[in-house]
């Protein structure tokens, strides 16, 4: 079947098997390997992408289900050379180690900040509670999101 969607601002159309998961569509069909796959049961959240601005576990969505929608992956977070404040925050506060959960965590953080620009620790923890990180123990991820909240402008990050 044919699917058409906007991925990181560009429209893509592909013929796919109806059963193709969104995560495999992004990784294997489009070559966007920043989105990871970590479990089969929608528990780990390494596969989180934004669909119309909302975090979605792409291992539990069919590519067909997102046809006609806007998908944003980690590759679409930075604006050219300028990092999203969330990306900068993860580097500033050591919010990542192996990097595998990081794309999903950052996209969830971006969605949180878009609806709540100044979240407190409890709100951040709740927002990322559908995702697992095995390396950081989460405290530095919380700090990273707080850093991004405190440095909202891309220009400030550049400077």
């Amino acid at each position, binding site marked *: 079947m044919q699917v058409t969607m906007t991925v990181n601002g560009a429209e893509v159309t592909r013929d796919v098997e109806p059963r193709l998961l969104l995560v495999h569509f992004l990784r294997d069909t489009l070559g966007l390997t920043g989105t990871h796959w970590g479990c089969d*049961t929608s528990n780990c959240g390494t596969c989180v992408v934004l669909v119309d601005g909302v975090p979605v576990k792409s291992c539990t969505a069919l590519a067909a289900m997102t046809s006609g929608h806007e998908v944003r992956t980690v590759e679409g*977070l930075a604006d050219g050379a300028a990092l999203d404040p969330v990306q900068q925050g993860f580097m500033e506060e*050591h919010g990542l180690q192996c*990097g595998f959960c990081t794309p999903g965590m950052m996209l969830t953080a971006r969605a949180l900040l878009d609806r709540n620009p100044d979240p407190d620790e409890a709100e951040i*923890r709740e927002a990322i509670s559908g995702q*697992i990180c*095995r390396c*950081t*123990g989460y*405290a530095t991820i919380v700090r990273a999101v707080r850093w991004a909240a405190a440095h909202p402008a891309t220009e400030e990050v550049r400077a």
Partner: protein
Amino acid sequence: MTAVEHRPANPAATSADRPIGFGRIQRKEDPRFVRGKGRYVDDIVLPGMLHGAILRSPVAHARLVSVDTTEALAHPKVHAVITGRDLEGLNLAWAPTLSADVQAVLATDKVRFQGQEVAFVVAEDRYAARDALELIDVEYEELPPVIDARRALDPGAPVIRDDLAGRTDNHVFDWEAGDAAETDAVFAAAEVVVAQEVVYPRVHPAPMETCGALADYDPVDGTLTLYETTQAPHAHRTLFAMVAGIPEHKIRVISPDIGGGFGNKVGIYPGYILAVVGSIVTGRPVKWMEDRSENLMSTSFARDYIMRGEIAATREGRILAVRTHVLADHGAFNATAQPTKYPAGFFSIFTGSYDLQAAHCAVTGVYTNKAPGGVAYACSFRVTEAVYLVERMVDVLAAELGMDPAELRLRNFIRPEQFPYRNKTGWEYDSGDYEPAMRKALEMAGYDELRREQAEKRARGELMGIGVSFFTETVGAGPRKHMDILGLGMNDGAEVRVHPTGKAVVRLSVQTQGQGHETTFAQILAEELGIPPEDIDVVHGDTDRTPFGLGTYGSRSTPVSGGAVALAARKVRDKARAIAAAMLETRPEDLEWEKGRWYVQGDPSAGRTIAEIALGAHGTVALPEGVDGNLDAEVTYDPPNLTFPFGAYVCVVDVDRGTGKVRVRRFVAVDDCGTRINPMIIEGQVHGGLADGVGMALMEFIGFDEQGNCLGGSFMDYLIPTAMEVPDWETGHTVTPSPHHPIGAKGIGESATVGSPPAVVNAVVDALAPLGVRHMDMPCTPARVWAAMQGRATPPI
């Protein structure tokens, strides 16, 4: 709050403010990860690549009657179906394990655990490969399984390993350390003896990236390029050469970015070998990535130690001796990754941080119908189990004596003047200063105030617990006179090159899985040579581009390869001195070193920087006799001893009286890993380990039913802490350098995973103490805590 790690006031510090050497700097590897440009095994695509999938046994113990692959082979997208019979023809059906046992690559005679590999399909894409698994028809003749390790040695227990000649039982090994007679004598005369069975249940490292491989065999020149999720690329290459008969110089193992390892990615799994076989059979690259259930059900688990511990003490709280007998469940094949002479790893450091008169441990390993493994999950070769046992037992003793558990520990620590300290099982602790670390943790926690709060809450019937633990690790394996894995000495290499323009590259045999090696090893070189970390490239994870060594596990990267890098850098520095002397027309002994530069004694303006010397070395400077024209050096480091990091942890929990749910309210961790290379990365390592500890203490569990069905086979059942289950960590540190390590560093990667579970369980038991509870086994799930509160038998989970 007594504060935490120092962080610079200005996070946007300029390059001039950043340390050239040790200190907090951002990680060099981060820019690619935050852009989604990490390169993990499953991200790699080769032209013509096929996909493999493994058919696994649904039962724990059965005779394999037949495997019919006819229908699968007829699938239009299937290129090959490989069975155990096919592998027998290649002499590859069985492979050696890291403990000198053998493991079935694909089952031929029997299946011995649920999830064991039975057949391998190679197909056009990953979906088709999975489809074809459904078309394979396997007939099993079920056999009674051995699930409970306590029954494994019963007379008449089914013999799991009847593939081994002459095998009539499920016994793997007996091993002991310490002096049994001396220990028994101390126990016989002791005023107080407490005993407790302590179970460290089976858990799983469960890195976020599962295991996988991409094999690319070139039939024309006979070379194999193997991309693998491995923590030990060189060891894997050597073992592949031994197993598969491919000459070692024709094998290139590449371990790209690794999405977490924690010991899960040390062993050679059947899937890796099958990807290679698949590539040889089809003539095309073959990728195999396991799914989460395969990872949890078949790859290296951790722990599964049933420990009966005893402590002898005086009524005043002087600990005299410790003894234990352990039943170790090794699963269906003895595949643990540990030094050859240590079948129970470094468990014999169960004497902990205390000055004892005697100690003895005996460990019996048994086969069961469960997945193989045992040494994984940041365990420092079983130090985890050892620390958990002694730290739980000290609390049992404290309860018996009616003493405060922190005070009991303080009374029994090895004193600073006793180091280097030889314990009763033969370890030589290199350095330690325990009391200041303990007092710092108690102060940070506000221990006395917490006890007052607890007393008030207890008076109101509320359940609040305060748990203390103090650990000493033994890491950095290891000295070649004592340690090897399958005959390979546990040393690691480093190669340093300073390029003509003064930039440098350092090549490592160890392999990061998130620990930040690209940053910390650059910092070691920067500290030694004064070259800024951003001017240093760290190369690792590719056997063609790095020196030989045994890889990263057991917190050995900094203790072993860190030593290699420092010593190689010092060789470069010495060479630079000779060349600088030639350039300055003076004698080497007349030169003084300041970071990054040799200068003439008494005339600091007359000097040459490392960059100038590098250009001179590669240029036209007339070189002194015996000095060749480069600034390169290499070292294979054989550590003289292991290193002994330590730490003091305090955990505060609240237990819901109505549900038995445990909430970790606070966690204070004071660690001492000797010299600190990058405080930010150290803090990150500690944080991650603390979350592991909370997970194991409260949630994580690989259980089995009586038929051997795995009850922790997905993240629906194997519960890992999220941000909601862990608190904000409070960390601190003391610094007691290792006297024998070139930079005094001890390693930090596993400290918190080792030290935190007893703190959490001690806190839970402390909370339940008013109800008469003296001990409970992990994981302290609501159902188990509730049962303990009611004085009922422990439910399975």
